[in-house]
Structure formats: C-alpha cells, structure tokens
C-alpha cells in the first residue's frame, strides 16, 4: 500500500463545550483529489485547519510523508509545501491583488536595493501575479494593482484559489472554493483543481456541491459529527447514497 502523503489520526479539537473534531482520521494519497463532504458543522473546516496549522489539535497526530509533523502556525504548514484556501478566504482587503498573492513571501529587488534596503520588487510581483492569474484562466483582471476590497466576492475567491494553486508544492487544500462563484467561474476552478492534480499535486477539496464532487474526486471522505464516517469511491456509489451516509440516514456499506 502506498504511504499517504498527508495523514491524520485521531484528531480531537474542542471549543469549550463544543467538540468540533471527535477523533477524526484522514488519508490523502499521492496524486489524488480527495473530496471531503459533510453537513454544516460536521467538522470539515476544523479538520483541514488542523492539517494546515491554523489550529492546533488537542489530541491526535498529523503525518506528512509518513513522518509526524506538528504545525504550530500556518507558516509552518506552508513551509512544508501545504497551501490552503480557507473558507474565510484569508485575504487582506486593503492590499492589492499582487500584494495578496505574495503576502508573506514577498519578492525583493536584486542587489543592494533588496539586500540592504529590503526593497520590494513591486513590478516583478505585479507581472508574476498577472502571469499566474492569466495562466489559471479563472479571472480576467485588468489591473493587479487593484485593492482586493473593491473586488466582488467571487473575484476575491479567485485570488485566494490562485494563490494556493500557484504556490502549493506538496498539497493543496481548498475549503469550499466555489461557494461564491458563478457557473463559468466554478467550471474554471474545477478545471484548475484537475490541472493541479495533473501537475502531480494531491488536492483536498471541501464542497457541498455534489455534482462537482462526483465529477472531480478520486475518493470521497464523508465527515459526520466530527469523525470520518466513511471513504467511498464516487464510481461505485450513487450521489443519493453518499448524501444518505452524510446525513446519517444510511450506514456506510461494508
């Protein structure tokens, strides 16, 4: 059996009296798209936050390529090559698109201007941002110098998605990346997810949109009441059965 690239065992996360994760497992295999589905409050976001260093689990273990890791900040996870699109998007409204794409990993100018005066390579980042966004084809922006707060919800989402896709080197995690998108834009994000997978990067996709999930996922992780209820193959289960397991109306087969 292949070692999962990213694995979680027995994750527990409590918020006061609310238990968001009650011993949840997860396995992400190399090169796959793993969809995570579940009702509102099932603990999907909490699960991926624990994987991306955004929260520190109370119990349980995270393994990257088979060896235990403990991310105490999102930066740690990012340094390990895990890029995440959070449900809250995590963009900085008053900064422009290019600044948001490069937030926390800014490019500096060559030579003394960069090394001594720490000057940012503003033009370099703008050009690169435009190139990335064009290549992803998920949005047409006229001006990468436009402040993110003047963008529509869908455009902001595109910026967050583009950032993760452009910089992920081991794993890309997307928490409801199409929630605010129109039909055409959702299509582009789905194509992007497939494109990322074809680049050899595994993707965790959280979504409430069953047709999307069944179209792109290699395996489906069903989260229920803070635990992994089942992992199913989209080719051998119907959409309605998956939803029935998700809502507790049906027990998983086997």
């Amino acid at each position, binding site marked *: 059996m292949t070692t999962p690239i990213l694995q979680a065992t027995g994750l527990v996360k409590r918020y006061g009296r609310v238990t968001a994760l009650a011993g949840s497992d997860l396995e992400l295999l190399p090169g796959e798209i793993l969809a995570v589905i579940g009702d509102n409050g099932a603990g999907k976001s909490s699960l991926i936050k624990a994987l991306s260093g*955004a929260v520190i689990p109370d119990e349980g273990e995270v393994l990257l390529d088979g060896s235990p890791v403990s991310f105490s*900040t999102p930066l740690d996870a990012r340094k390990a090559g895990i890029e995440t699109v959070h449900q809250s998007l*995590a963009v900085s409204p*008053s900064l422009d698109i290019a600044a948001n794409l490069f*937030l926390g990993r800014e490019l500096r100018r060559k030579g003394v201007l960069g090394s001594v005066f720490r000057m*940012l390579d503003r033009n370099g980042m703008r050009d690169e941002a435009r190139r990335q966004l064009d290549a992803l084809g998920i949005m047409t922006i006229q001006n990468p110098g436009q402040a993110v707060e003047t963008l529509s919800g869908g455009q902001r989402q595109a910026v967050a998605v583009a950032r993760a896709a452009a910089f992920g080197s081991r794993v890309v995690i997307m928490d409801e990346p199409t929630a605010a998108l129109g039909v055409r834009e959702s299509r582009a994000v789905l194509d992007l997810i497939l494109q990322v997978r074809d680049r050899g990067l595994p993707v965790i996709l959280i979504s409430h949109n069953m047709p999307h999930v069944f179209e792109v996922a290699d395996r489906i992780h069903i989260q229920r009441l803070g635990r992994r209820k089942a992992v199913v193959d989209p080719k051998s289960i119907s959409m309605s059965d998956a939803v029935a397991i998700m809502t507790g109306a049906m027990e998983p087969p086997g």
Partner: protein
Amino acid sequence: MTVVVEERDRSVLTRVQHLLHAQATIGPAVVLLTSVIVFALLSERFLTPGNISLILQQVAVVGTLAVGQTIVILTAGIDLSCGAIMVLTSIVMAKVASETGLPGLPALLLGFLVGTVCGLLNGMLVTRLKLPPFIVTLGTLNVFFALNLWYSGSATIRGTDMPSLLLFTGQTFTVGGTRITYGSIMLVLLVAAMAFVLKNTAWGRHVYSTGDDLEASRLSGIRTARVLLSVYATAGLIYAVAAWTLIGRIASASPQAGQTDNLDSITAVVIGGTSLFGGRGAVVGSLIGALIVGVFRNGLALAGVDVLWQTMAVGVLIIVAVSLDQWIRKVKA
C-alpha cells in the same frame, strides 16, 4: 431635469470617494493648503519667517510622536502611553548625563534603549496577554508616568547641566530668514524614512495587513505577533527620538512636560487620514495632520480668537476627519 443633475452630483461624489480611498493623504493636504491660504489672508503676520518657524517648532514634538503613533494605529491599535514614554526617556537621558557625567551620545542611546524597552513591554502585553491596546497603554501610561516621577524626584533638569548633544535638536539654522530647528529636520527625515519602509518593504506590507485583518494575515503565513511586537518597539524608539526633540524645545527635561501630547499625537494621526480601524493610512498624512493642528491654533491665535475656540476647532476637525474615514471605507467596486 433635477434627477439628471442629482445623478451627476452623485457620480462626482463617488469619484471623490474613490480618489480619497486610493490616496488618503489628499484630503488632509487640501485642508492644510486651504487653511494656510485663509490664515495668510486673515493676518499678514501669519506667513512671516518668524511665525513659520514658531509653528514648525510647536509641531516638531507632537509630529515625531505621531510617527510612532501612526504605525501603532495602522495595526488597529492605539498608544496612550507615547507621551509618558517620551517624558520618561527624556528624564533618563538628561538625569543620567547630568548626574553621572555620561557623555551625550551614550546618554542618548540609553534613552533610545529605554524607549524601545517600554514599547516592547506594550507589545508583549498586547500579543501575549491578548489585551486590547487601549487598556494596555492606559495601564502603562500610568506606570511610565509614575516611574518618571519617581526617577526624577519630580524635579526638572536644567539644560545647562546637560551635554550639548541633548540640546542639539533645539538649535537652529536659517533658511530665507526662517529659523529652523534641527528637531524639525529630524522629524521630516523620520517621516521620509518611515514612509519609505511602509511602502517598500515586506514589513511595511505586513503592518498594513495585520491591521487590516489579523486572522487573515495569520492564515496567510504572517507572524502577526512578531509584527505587532516590532511595531510597538519601533514606536517606543521613535518616542525616545521625540524625547530628544522635547529636550531641545524646552531646553530642559521636565517630568511634567507633554501631558496631553499622547492625545495630540492621536489627533494628528486621525486628522492625517489614517483609519482608527487599522490597515489604512500613511505617515505623511500624520505629519500633515500635526501641521494642520499647529496652523489652526497659530492662525486662530493671530486672528485674535480665544484659545477655547481654537480647541473647539480642533475638536470639529477630528469629528470631520473620522466621519470622512467612515464614508471612504464604504467605497464600492
């Protein structure tokens, strides 16, 4: 007909809103220019070299504090302790030098160190104990002020007992009949340096981003606690520079100096177009804000207006500036 006119009005207004949104400093700059013109028309003494020199001297101390205050407010914080840090460091510099005979430069550097440590303490309380900056700095304001009274024994240290370096900021040179203090030159250099850093370095971007949305910045991989710590510590260092300017300005070190300078620095920052909600503003605006307050007070005084109306005018300016900020923040795509 009327409908058409109204629509045009609105589009002009929206355009102004967008302009101010993109360039927060334009509003304050226009106010400053207008008030200079109006006061120059009201009194021929206003634009005389002697009067300009007076305004610059009056603005130097609060303006310097406002540079530190700006970076704190950009992170959605506030620093009520800035004046207390300034006075404490001015007393430390002056007293150590006058009592132990420590030369000017080490005394100055010691003051810078004390200012930085005070700022760092604020930063630790904000990031470690996760207390609101308002409460933290309200507390440390009293702590630093008490330390200042204790260390100084409530006594003023005369300029004649100090090394001349500490008084350097009060010395002047003359340009076209206007006497300019080195303290105001230092302020301009400080503003230029801070503006450069905020605009052109990753640290500057992280300051804006942290103030804009703390959690989003953290999730984007910014070490927000470290950013906040560095901001409060840098602000403390800048307040120590203000202490140097203060000593030069009053040619002494007084434990009772600058009692309202903390609020005055906040006033300068707010009138300068920096948002109290964080993430938006510029340090040049704060310099302009300090100048606006200086020009208003001075111009109204020259026009023979009672001090109480000067204070009223500053109050109205604050309310107008904050309302404007609220309006600008509502800008839509």
